[in-house]
């Protein structure tokens, strides 16, 4: 864990360096597509006079290059064939660089797989003197008892969600306040370590440096939940190609994230198996004629399946749209049921507001919101990512919510555990840093 802790710190420094250079790349490694956006940071002076403030930081940057490519070698949001994925990343990065006409060296990546698991941590300390200092916050964070996250797993996000000072809770920033006991709640997201190592390796092989890593469930929540939903409590369901990410937000903090290892590609493979057609044809049929609600009209709408076998009977097959829906619906239902189970397990029904936002490429199936509201509850809407400057029209769809969210994450990351000072007692006993720290504190 300390290993990734150190590398997360290094990544933060890298991100700062990239911000200074003004150009950073965003890489969304998905199962069905790899998207690369190139952001240029102009600083806060680029604001127009339209009376809109800096908001979530999305006004401080501009997308100057965008490219997507079909993903290869990625399954369930994890890299399964390194060389193929590397080539796909190279394709996307090169096309985006060409569009931006600038070279990028730093990249912030997100991925959806690696079996994220959420843990709630609590830590509590007695304050040394009555005023809360940064050092106290650091001590409180390091006092959190870390659960056994399992062999070979790493911490991806560790965000302090809440601070409590004596009997007062819900503090955002306790520094400078007076009290005796500082308690903190932290949300920790652990993932499979080997997946992260693979991604690190893949990005290194593309001559890029990783300046940040995020869970795509988290970042698509940032971009597709509106502010009051994040504040009052909402869940973002990011239905991707190979996995469906779930993230629950309240008070602008993510408190739970999970992923279901099923997505749009499974629907496609069902169609492929059911109709005995290649995956590409199945994908085309799904996107062109897909749906989840069959009506009488759909019985009459015949779809040419086509084929290249040379057998006239096979190549001239036609199916009705109802049949197609009959294939798709059970799988979509299965995914949503699984999401429901996860949300129930997380205690989503205890939140004050139970808004559910569906986003991601697979959420574009017509009629999905109707089906989802039957399974997940009444308050379901389809979400699209926030608008950011310079994003091409083709990249504003819900399939790009995690890419856009990653832009916001790059511009304005939430404080994580490694952004705080290191608690003094965590330094090695004979460290020179400890001496320096002692001098800094006492002189």
């Amino acid at each position: 864990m300390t290993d990734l802790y150190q590398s997360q710190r290094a990544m933060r420094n890298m991100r700062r360096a990239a911000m200074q250079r003004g150009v950073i790349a965003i890489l969304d490694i998905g199962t069905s597509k790899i998207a690369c956006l190139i952001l240029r940071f102009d600083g806060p002076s680029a604001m127009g006079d339209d009376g809109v403030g800096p908001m979530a930081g999305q006004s401080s940057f501009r997308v100057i290059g965008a490219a997507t490519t079909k993903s290869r070698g990625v399954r369930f949001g994890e890299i399964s064939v390194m060389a193929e994925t590397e080539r796909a990343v190279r394709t996307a990065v090169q096309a985006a660089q060409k569009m931006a006409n600038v070279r990028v060296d730093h990249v912030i990546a997100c991925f959806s797989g690696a079996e994220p698991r959420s843990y709630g941590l609590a830590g509590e300390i007695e304050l040394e003197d009555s005023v809360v200092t940064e050092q106290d916050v650091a001590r409180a964070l390091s006092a959190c008892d870390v659960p056994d996250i399992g062999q070979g797993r790493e911490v991806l996000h560790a965000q302090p969600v809440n601070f409590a000072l004596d009997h007062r809770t819900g503090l955002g920033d306790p520094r400078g306040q007076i009290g005796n006991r500082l308690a903190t709640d932290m949300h920790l997201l652990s993932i499979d370590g080997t997946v992260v190592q693979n991604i690190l390796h893949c990005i290194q092989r593309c001559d890029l440096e990783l300046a940040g890593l995020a869970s795509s469930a988290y970042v698509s929540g940032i971009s597709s939940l509106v502010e009051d939903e994040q504040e009052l409590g909402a869940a973002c369901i990011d239905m991707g190609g190979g996995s469906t990410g779930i993230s629950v937000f309240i008070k602008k903090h993510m408190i739970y994230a999970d992923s279901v290892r099923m997505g749009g590609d499974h629907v496609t493979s069902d169609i492929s198996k059911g109709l005995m057609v290649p995956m590409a044809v199945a994908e085309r049929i799904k996107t062109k004629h897909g749906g989840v609600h069959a009506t009488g009209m759909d019985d009459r709408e015949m779809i040419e399946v086509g084929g290249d076998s040379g057998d006239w009977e096979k190549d001239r097959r036609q199916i009705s749209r109802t049949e197609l829906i009959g294939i798709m619906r059970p799988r979509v239902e299965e995914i949503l049921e699984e999401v429901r189970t996860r949300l129930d397990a997380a205690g989503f029904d205890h939140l004050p507001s139970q808004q559910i936002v569906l986003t991601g490429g697979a959420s574009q199936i017509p009629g999905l919101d109707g089906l989802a509201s039957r399974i997940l509850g009444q308050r379901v809407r389809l979400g699209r990512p926030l608008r950011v400057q310079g994003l091409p029209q083709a990249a504003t769809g819900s399939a790009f919510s995690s890419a856009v969210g990653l832009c916001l994450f790059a511009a304005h990351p939430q404080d994580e555990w490694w952004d705080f000072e290191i608690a003094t007692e965590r330094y090695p006993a004979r460290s020179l840093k400890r001496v320096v720290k002692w001098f800094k504190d006492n002189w």
Partner: protein
Amino acid sequence: MQSLTARRPAPLRRDPAPSRWAYRMQRLWLTPVFRVLFRVGLPSFVLAATVGLVLADADRRDAISGGIAEIRDRFENRPEFMVALVSVEGASPELADAVRMRLGLKLPLSSFDIDLDAARNRIQELDAIAKADLAVRSGGVLQVTITERVPALLWRTEAGIEMLDETGHRVASLGSRADRPDLPLIAGEGADAATTEALQLLAAAEPILPRIRGLVRVGMRRWDVVLDRNQRILLPQDRPVAALERLIALNQANDLLGRDIFAVDLRTEHRPVLRLAPYALNQLRAAQGIDTSGSEL
């Protein structure tokens, strides 16, 4: 007839990914420093290297410079640039000859080879010339327009008589005074430096002009007016014109200069002093009853 082999379209390239090297080259090309080096540095280096290599050989250098000089020569010696004639305007024939001699141009000559400024300076060294304008006119004519100096005074020195213009600059020498009886005469060391004052004095002395023989500069600071009958008017250093005007007024009232005096000394402003001739002095003393025992003074 139908071909037995099916005509299939060329297989699609499934993988649009760039090769590792293509990817790296593109990134290298997008590096600003590299771009500048490649676009500016490399061409300028190649250019400098080529020029350097070509010019490294001395024979080649000479050939190039010789070629350039030859082209330049041929252009300058075209007939439309040749000057064949010098025309001198505004000068007497003798002066014109002197000017031509002074120019010393071996005509015909290309107008590029004539240094007009130097030629003008050479001409202006002639004393008789106040100002000279040189211009190359069409038709191969070098036109020299000359303004001559006008003599205003004669200056008698030990060497001879010089003519001076009103600024005191020498115009020419003169054989004898009789050649220019119309010009007034001045003498004395440094007289040419005060010609303006001399001319003012002569203008002021208009009423007694027929009697004036000339002006003498004394001690390079003041003037004496010499009249006939060896009379002298000694003028002060400061404001000599006013003093002379006062004397002329006195002369018109009392006919002072017609009397038997040697000199009128005006050097002290409030007290003009007369130096009487010996006879007049004796007469005066006799009238005053002073016996000078036969002395002349």
